[in-house]
């Protein structure tokens, strides 16, 4: 490379020769060590503290659910007409969080994005735990949780079938399909790494447990060959799921005739929003995790910067959808539709609407600047803003449309109770407990895949350009 005086080195890097995805010591064994040591050694003190706090918060979730089940859904702020209330807001929020994992592992794999390898395992785990949190909310929202199995089309003596024409039922299928495929994808990708942990294990118990889950993986050529075929096929099968789950969630709203819910852009808009919030959560978790477990060389600044770019891009898509909805609510000439949107922005929930717009559309614009995309404190704060904004988006959609019924005599302001708060915060306890257990016992980074991104993995390694 010759005359590069007029350009900063970083600019040129981005075009021609981006920084390597694996930093630090230049050998394959050290990658295995870095990742496996986390599971083999005692975790840092911070892990114990975080785990205890999460466990406590999880206890709060348990207590509030027990209270709910023995008392009834009246303990929540749900009312008529806002019968959906926070449980459905939380459900949609958590399903959204659960989108980044499969996008990173499946869609980015098909797009040949090598940087996915540093974060995919991590994001997939997060996806699975988020979907667990999501699934809980509709189940407790039905009120009589002991008959929740009625949502499944099981023949029963009452000849009672779920309504197949209801998008709420499609949701059951969409989310459970997504959960099973994501789990399969996550587990299958982990098999070679579990075998590494098995082979390195010093204690009998861990050798046995890792051994069971490693499914007798030996790393033979034939196994790798099949593994890669299956991985590609699963990626292709999981890709439509990334779009379908949140599209079906959006149908819960959009098939209705309710102003503010019924709009055709909702499916792709929900998908973009889900990816947006999912990536924000990955950043929120990756920033402390890479510092705590010494993974800075595997989850590098370049990974974080690229994720911030995805956050910016998907945030803009969400902004596009807000703008289109607003424009068409006027253009349609439908006065109910027009009212719903003006009411969102200037009605009794205007505060929630403007929190949503600020957090989702305005704040991420700071990522246009490279300096901020690469600043750990800035990205951490913004990722939390985005999480807040995306929760509020679902709140705005659910509550503003419902609380203004067609009959003004039915209008009713929604206020959450302390049980609502305890359940929402408690769901974070569930999420973080599962996540911390994952960090402690399973390989957080896809060891084998990351190795493919090192210079050694390329045929021309060592050639002179």
């Amino acid at each position, binding site marked *: *490379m*010759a*005359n*590069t*005086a*007029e*350009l900063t080195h970083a*600019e*040129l890097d*981005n*075009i*021609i020769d981006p920084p390597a995805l694996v930093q630090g010591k230049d050998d394959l064994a050290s990658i295995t060590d870095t990742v496996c040591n986390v599971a083999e050694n005692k975790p840092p003190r911070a892990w114990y503290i975080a785990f205890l706090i999460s466990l406590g918060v999880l206890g709060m979730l348990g207590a509030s659910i027990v209270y709910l089940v023995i008392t009834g859904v009246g303990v929540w702020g749900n009312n008529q007409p806002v019968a959906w209330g926070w449980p459905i807001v939380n459900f949609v929020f958590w399903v959204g969080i659960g989108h980044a994992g499969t996008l990173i592992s499946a869609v980015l794999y*098909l797009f*040949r994005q090598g940087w996915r390898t540093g974060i995919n395992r991590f994001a997939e785990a997060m996806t699975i735990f988020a979907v667990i949190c999501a699934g809980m909310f509709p189940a407790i929202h039905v009120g009589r949780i002991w008959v929740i199995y009625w949502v499944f089309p099981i023949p029963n003596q009452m000849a009672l079938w779920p309504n197949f024409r209801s998008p709420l039922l499609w949701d059951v299928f969409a989310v459970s399909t997504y959960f099973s495929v994501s789990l399969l994808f996550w587990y299958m990708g982990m098999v070679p790494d579990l075998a590494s942990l098995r082979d390195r294990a010093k204690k009998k118990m861990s050798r046995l447990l890792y051994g069971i889950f490693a499914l007798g993986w030996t790393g033979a050529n034939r196994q790798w060959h099949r593994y*890669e075929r299956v991985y*590609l096929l699963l990626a292709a099968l999981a890709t*439509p799921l990334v*779009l379908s789950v949140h*599209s079906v969630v959006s*149908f819960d709203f*959009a*098939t*209705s*005739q309710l102003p503010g819910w*019924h*709009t*055709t*852009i*909702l*499916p*792709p808009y929900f998908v973009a929003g889900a990816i947006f919030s999912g990536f924000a959560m990955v950043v929120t978790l990756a920033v402390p995790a890479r510092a705590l477990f010494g993974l800075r060389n595997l989850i590098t600044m370049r990974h974080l910067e690229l994720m911030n770019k995805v956050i910016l891009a998907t945030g*803009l898509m969400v902004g*596009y*959808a807000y703008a*289109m*909805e607003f424009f*068409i609510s006027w*253009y*349609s*000439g*439908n006065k109910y539709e027009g009212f719903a949107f003006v009411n969102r922005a200037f009605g009794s929930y205007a505060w929630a609407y403007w929190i949503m717009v600020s957090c989702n559309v305005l704040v991420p614009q700071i990522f*246009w600047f490279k300096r901020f995309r690469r600043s750990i404190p800035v990205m951490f704060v913004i990722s939390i803003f985005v999480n807040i904004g995306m929760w509020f988006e679902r709140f705005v959609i659910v509550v503003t449309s419902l609380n203004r019924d067609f009959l003004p005599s039915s209008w009713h302001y929604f206020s959450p109770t302390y049980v609502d708060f305890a359940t929402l915060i408690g769901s974070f306890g569930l999420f973080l407990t599962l996540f911390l257990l994952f960090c402690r016992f399973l390989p957080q980074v896809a060891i084998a895949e990351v190795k493919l991104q090192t210079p050694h993995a*390329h045929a*021309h390694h060592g*050639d002179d*350009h």
Partner: protein
Amino acid sequence: MNPVNVNREPVLAPDLAARVSRVGLVLAVLGLGAGFALGAAEGDNLRHFFWAYLVGFAFFFTFTLGGLFFVLVQHVTGAKWSVSVRRMGEFAMNTVPALGIMAIPLLYPLLTNAGREEFGGLLWPWVQPHGEHADLVAMKEPFLNVPFFIGRMVFYLLVWWLMARFFMKRSLQQDTDRDPAYAPTIAMRKLSAPGIIVFALTLSFASFDWLMSTAPEWFSTIFGVYIFAGCVLTIHAWLVISSVFLQKQGYMKKEVNAEHYHDLGKFMTAFTVFWAYIAFSQFMLIWYANLPEETGFFHSRTTEAWKTMSYLLIVTNFFVPFFGFLSRHVKRKPKMLAMWAVYVLIVHWLDLYWLVMPSMSPESNPFGLIEVATTIGAFGLFLWAFARQGVRHSVLAYGDPKLGDCLAHENY
């Protein structure tokens, strides 16, 4: 990855380009001329002609905007695989002036008094609101009025022209200047991200204006995305066709190989599915909610004369290409893929025809020579503008810093 040794030479095909552009011009003159003559012979004040002309115009515009999107997205993502076919995309995007020429006759139905009383306008029926939806349409007057509409039309074309010029100029500069610091490439990369925002907004509103407002009482927030899906399909199909054609004529034999066709094929598969996803979302949500103000659009398309075509569209635009593209074999055989690409363009045209024409004639499908002629004319005009650029410029972006990576590219 280390790039293979690249022989950075231009690929020049001026004679071929001149020949193709002449063919395009002949097609344009004959097609549009014949369409006009047929339209005039119908004695309906050219109403049928202008509706058919709009379908042709929309067909042209999806090539141009598809090209613009393709170029923008390659830069914003820093794509390597696509460098050798990108110049074709640049030629496609740089046809905005010809698109502008084609837009001029569209002023006639906006300004004439013909058809106003009877239909509300010769082409767009909101020029003078009439009939049972008159009040509703009149309410949209702040947006749907002739001066503002023309102003927006000029604005979209101007913006696209400026963007196309910027990217074309820089790309050619990168070839000829051999700037070792790749300043033009970096400039393109920097502008590509804001460019996509401008693209998304202008494309959406242009689709609302030109196509959605042919049924002015109807509305759909996803409509811009629907047209976008068609644009992306079109440009990938067009890149396949033009690359295969060039190779058949003896150019770009090494620069475009099975790996690149494979990727272009994958994008066509993906956007076939994406189109179906968007089309399904639009249809299903409107059908399910069954609100009178929205169902009119699909009602006229799923009853009487249009019923068969609507159902057929699901098969021709989704099932057939989806299963057609699934095989790896198909995507890696240039000639076979080119045949599929032609198929994609034809069904994409059908889609546009289906979007527009039932609004003119809900009771009968007016398909005839007039549509065929105007479409051939519109395509000819595009081809003329597209190929003309090959007379002066290399058909390969040979100065692109990522050309080596592109040539070494392999699928897994």
